[in-house]
């Protein structure tokens, strides 16, 4: 992802980052990207852990 493409994420989110601020965050992006990759690595279908909603029981 280029710096320009990277900056679009913040523009779309409505965050008023300056060009310098975007550039600073761009330096850290590979580290965050690695973390996202690690946390979202595919899990076996048989595991299929889900997040759940638990209704309050009164």
């Amino acid at each position, binding site marked *: 992802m280029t710096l320009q493409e990277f900056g679009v*994420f*913040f523009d*779309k*989110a*409505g*965050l*008023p*980052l300056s060009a310098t*601020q975007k550039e*600073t*965050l761009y330096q*850290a*992006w590979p*580290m*965050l990207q690695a*973390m*996202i990759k*690690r*946390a*979202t*690595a595919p*899990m076996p279908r048989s*595991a299929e*852990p*889900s*997040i759940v909603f638990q209704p309050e029981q009164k």
Partner: protein
Amino acid sequence: MSAHFSIRQAADLIAAKKLSPVELTQTCLDRVAKLDGELHSFLLLTAERALADAKAAEGRQMAGNLKGVLDGIPIGHKDIYCTAGIRTTAHSKLLEDFVPTDDSVVVQKWAAAGSVMMGKLATHEFAMGGPSFDLPWPPVRNPWNTAHFTAGSSSGTGAAVAAGLVLGGTGSDTGGSIRGPSALCGLAGIKPTYGTASRVGVLPLSFTLDHTGPMAWTVEDCAILLQAMAGHDPADPASATGATPDFLADLSKGVKGLKIGVISHFHEVDNPVSAATKAGIDAALDFFRKEGADIREVTLSPMMDYNAPGWLILTSEAYAVHEPWLKTRFNDYGELLRDRLAMGALISASDYVQATRRRRVLCQEMAAAMADLDIMITASAPGEAPKIDEVPKWAMLEKPNFTMPFNLTGLPALSVCTGFGTGGLPISMQIIGKPFQEATVFRAGHAYETAMSWRARRPAMAA
């Protein structure tokens, strides 16, 4: 009076009418006047309130109707705990003039127990950025060496307790914010099981990872403080509904027969600690072994596997909390926090959901590993406190930290001082328990701590 007291010691003396709560409070106020110009641990000192609280406690002392162990004990609150009529800033320009109308539930509970409220303690901005030098107040300095970092985010509580400005205080822990400063300032600090103590009235960072908890000089003091803050709160949807355990029940039982798992790969391979920290943990394990504990190795997924979903969840939830201000007051945040929060714009909804699914798998792994154990042990921090101006901005992305795995899984985790490193600053270990088994964690920590003669040592500036 120049002696440093633990909460237990002070409480025993107050109960025996050998220590005046007013005199104790005045000693703490004098220490604040002498030391806090250098430490910056208080954002707001409430001296009049403290003396009024102390006088009320002294009245109860004289009348023989003390409320309990915390009656007359000087404490402080991290400045994300709302206090009625008293400024609560989160150490941020955004809340520079915020005066809540209500006390947070924990503040109410400690006040009802008779504690003396000394004031509001510094934090990393909104319990996440830091150390920051571009906020309305300076960052806290470590009383063991003021050129060094306290860690955070409960930085003010860490420094204030270590220097004896208060005897205990509140912290909050989303990725290690109680255990980090406890480790680097040489205290005891516990992140209890998720849901143990109410978060109502505490400014949020990450709803599914935020924990409230106490920090104090000793393990026993942490147990006393946690007892006074725990309990079901129907206003906190995460609040546990079971009966509150007696956290002091097993304190003096020793460790004979305890089954202890050591997660060596966390502190030897995944993020290798300093030689002194490793030696401190090994010495503690030798102590436990000699006292009759059964020590075994535990292997879990690599520590970064726990940190990755933890930081994704934390950043996403914190982004959701702060999004309105990020859009309208972006440059009113300090640089560190605004940059960390802005990263939330790069995490997709799918990433967040996948991280929560991964969390469940890791919770199951941790539960299975603990099935035949009473506690686990690893490091709290990689070593002694670094210099305050040498803390990497993206430290949490570069290396896995030792505390996040237990925020992710919600398990109780206590940081205990294991001595001092080559630079003369504290080193530490972490004791982890099963859900709602804090009493066992305290039991092991207390047995170790009370056997260590060096535990009486305080920072030279506060001696």
